């Protein structure tokens, strides 16, 4: 069993914050391809076109018959054949986290692999493998107990591969909308210590305000993503007290490009969703990065909730999809930047939200509760990209299989 986490003591402001090192990120192109799939929560290995055997470590040709390889989902079982506890390391990050346990695992898929071990796993055990991302965004095989053990997620080694909300302080940008409120509640339910809940217009009441602000752990804050001064003021005020940022702000309006779209809607959308995202990142990325290895509530993640139609465009919601596309591009770049500092950048992708701006869209539509669940799952698993609902999953699957076709389909 794992010792349950306790919230950290108040930090001595005079102490030098622990520097968050990221391990060497030299990786082959094949390992980077593995990371891309790990980010989607998949457990994949390369399989040979000809002999069908799975191989690991990542290679560029099959070692059995020299056939071509591609990535396929694999069974997650394994047996730990040997283990060790590393007590000495030349790497600056691991030196701070010793002792570190690893093992030799015989994967059910066939190959042997060196894997990270959960504290409840030992030599001879059957385990459940997960393909995680490390702090630098590289793929990492992690062996978990086959069956859930008590406080399993609190394992100190495992927590370095997740951004679990437990004992963390989280900024949710838009409390005025149902999605932001649902996300805030779900994060507190998942063990977050505090949720700073943004309100772009504190003088105007919003629906659900009394209920959400009465919840223990919610701290309302003034935050307007279209106002650089407002963001900078909040960042200065919260400083090193935010461990995770979740951006739920949206401005969705219907309309096409040549027909029915309003330029003013597009400008509002771009200002809030695109420029707003960049304002938010510029204000909070440095403080998050400085605290990426700062104990149990180290800064861990920047999460952006955006429309899946950023991948494809969408007939009838052209402007909003364009804003989502810009958002995805910014998030991809931010992910690369933050991988250098040990902060995860995550995308929660949604289909049309069941709100007043999507009244004419037929179901299924995503509910705020589903979005909230996806945010919590992404943080708990360390997953980089997650689809919150059936529509998002469907578009993602089709886009991965055939992007050009999916773009045409979504714009018919």
């Amino acid at each position, binding site marked *: 069993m794992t010792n349950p986490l306790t919230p950290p003591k108040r930090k001595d402001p005079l102490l030098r914050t622990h520097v968050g090192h990221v391990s*060497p990120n030299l990786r082959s192109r094949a390992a980077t391809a593995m990371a891309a799939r790990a980010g989607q929560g998949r457990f994949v290995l390369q399989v040979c076109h000809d002999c069908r055997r799975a191989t*690991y*470590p990542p290679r560029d040709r099959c070692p059995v018959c020299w056939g071509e390889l591609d990535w396929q989902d694999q069974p997650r079982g394994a047996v730990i054949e040997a283990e060790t506890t*590393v007590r*000495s*390391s030349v790497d600056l990050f691991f030196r701070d986290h010793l002792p570190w346990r690893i093992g030799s695992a015989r994967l059910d898929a066939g190959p042997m692999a*060196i894997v990270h071990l959960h504290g409840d796993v030992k*030599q001879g055990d059957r385990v459940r493998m997960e393909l995680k991302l490390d702090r630098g965004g590289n793929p990492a095989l992690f062996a978990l107990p086959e069956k859930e053990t008590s406080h399993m997620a609190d394992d100190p080694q495992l927590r370095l591969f997740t951004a679990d909300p437990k004992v963390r302080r989280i900024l949710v940008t838009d409390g005025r909308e149902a999605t932001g409120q649902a996300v805030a509640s779900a994060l507190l339910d998942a063990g977050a210590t505090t949720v700073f809940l943004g309100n772009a217009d504190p003088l105007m009441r919003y629906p659900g305000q009394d209920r959400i602000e009465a919840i223990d752990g919610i701290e309302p804050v003034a935050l307007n993503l279209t106002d650089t001064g407002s963001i900078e003021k909040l960042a200065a005020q919260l400083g090193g007290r935010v461990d995770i940022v979740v951006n739920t702000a949206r401005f969705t309006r219907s309309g096409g490009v040549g027909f029915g779209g309003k330029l003013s809607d597009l400008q509002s959308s771009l200002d809030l969703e695109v420029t707003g995202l960049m304002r938010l990142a510029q204000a909070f990325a440095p403080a998050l990065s400085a605290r990426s290895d700062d104990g149990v509530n180290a800064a861990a993640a920047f999460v952006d909730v955006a429309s899946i139609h950023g991948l494809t465009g969408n007939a009838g919601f052209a402007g909003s999809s364009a804003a989502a596309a810009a958002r995805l591009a910014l998030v991809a770049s931010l992910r690369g930047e933050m991988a250098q500092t040990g902060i995860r950048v995550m995308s929660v992708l949604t289909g049309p939200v069941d709100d007043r701006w999507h009244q004419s869209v037929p179901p299924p539509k995503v509910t705020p509760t589903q979005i909230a669940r996806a945010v919590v799952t992404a943080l708990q698993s360390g997953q980089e990209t997650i689809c919150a609902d059936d529509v998002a999953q469907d578009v993602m699957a089709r886009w991965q299989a055939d992007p050009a076709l999916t773009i045409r389909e979504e714009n018919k």
Partner: protein
Amino acid sequence: MAQQQPYDGVVVCAPVTVPYTRYSDKTAHWWAGSALKELSRQTGLGPADFDGFCFSSFSAAPDTVVGMVQHLGLSPRWMDHIPTGGASGVMALRRAARGVQAGDVDLVACVAADTNQIDSFRQTLAGFSRCSQDASYPYGFGGPNATFALITDAFMRDYGVTRDDFAKLCVAQRSNALSNPHALMKKPLTHDAYMAARPIADPVHLFDCVMPCAGAEAFVVTTPEKAQELGLSTARLSATIERHNAFAEDPVQTRGGWARDIDALWSAAGCTPQDVDMVQLYDDYPVIVAMQLADLGLCDKAELSQFIAAHDFTITGSMPLNTNGGQLSAGQAGAAGGFQNVTEGLRQVLHCPLGDQVPDAKRALISGFGLVNYDRGVCTGAAILEQDVLR
């Protein structure tokens, strides 16, 4: 498999060890040049005289043997670059011997040299190989200690070998090192001190690990006529084996490539394990020494523990092992660590040891083991050297 042709018309001579240092601000080029300078002192030969050059190093980047040839003013008609670290000594020996035997070359300087600058060990580890950068070092960055901890864990369980057995090997090697003036470890090691050492990566403890250092090793492969002309004592090469990536299907490495070819080695050498006067076994970790005692045919793997208990591995013992102290006590100078078994075995059969002489030594078993590309050592080799002419 065809029977190995004998190494007629080939001799090995002029063993050189440039004294190791823990850290060095010099380059691999400087260390290689030091080894050649010492060869020159022993043989009276200069850059124009060697028509063959075989080189091994981890720290000569961006140079290979090509850069080294121009750097050191050689003009060989035969050269080779051996990237196999711990297996490079045996491989250099084999390749040079066949070159000489075929008349492609007359006089080969085989050199391994590595420097050890502050932090160069960490940098070497981080980019050591494609598989290690992708799939082993990121797992705690314990380096070879962690990889061999996994191997040791499996080996101890599978074959009933204990830390007490490893202690006996390490203590004997340390006692051998005490007569070697170049050994980096100069204090005696007791069984109790071995057992009480701090853990590095369980079950690997401090005295199971080598100390990375800078150094160079060299020897000459030539014809008997040339050696006679130069007045050098010589050894013959009785037989060799080499194997890479053997038993890839074994989940954790508990045997090496030697096990696949060992009968061919003894058969080509025309002798048995009982006929060797000493064993110079690659010793990055004692588990690899134990593995080789079995894989090289000296004992049955199931009886390793009893075999270790029954023998005395010191220089005057029943089975002298790593008589210069091995890497565990003399230091691991990168690829030179793969040469020092050859130079020490050669010195013992030529009766010019650095430290104490194995009494009446005539025949040495030498092994190599190299390159943890991912989760195990990939390259293995072994050779038997016999005294030829003492001059």
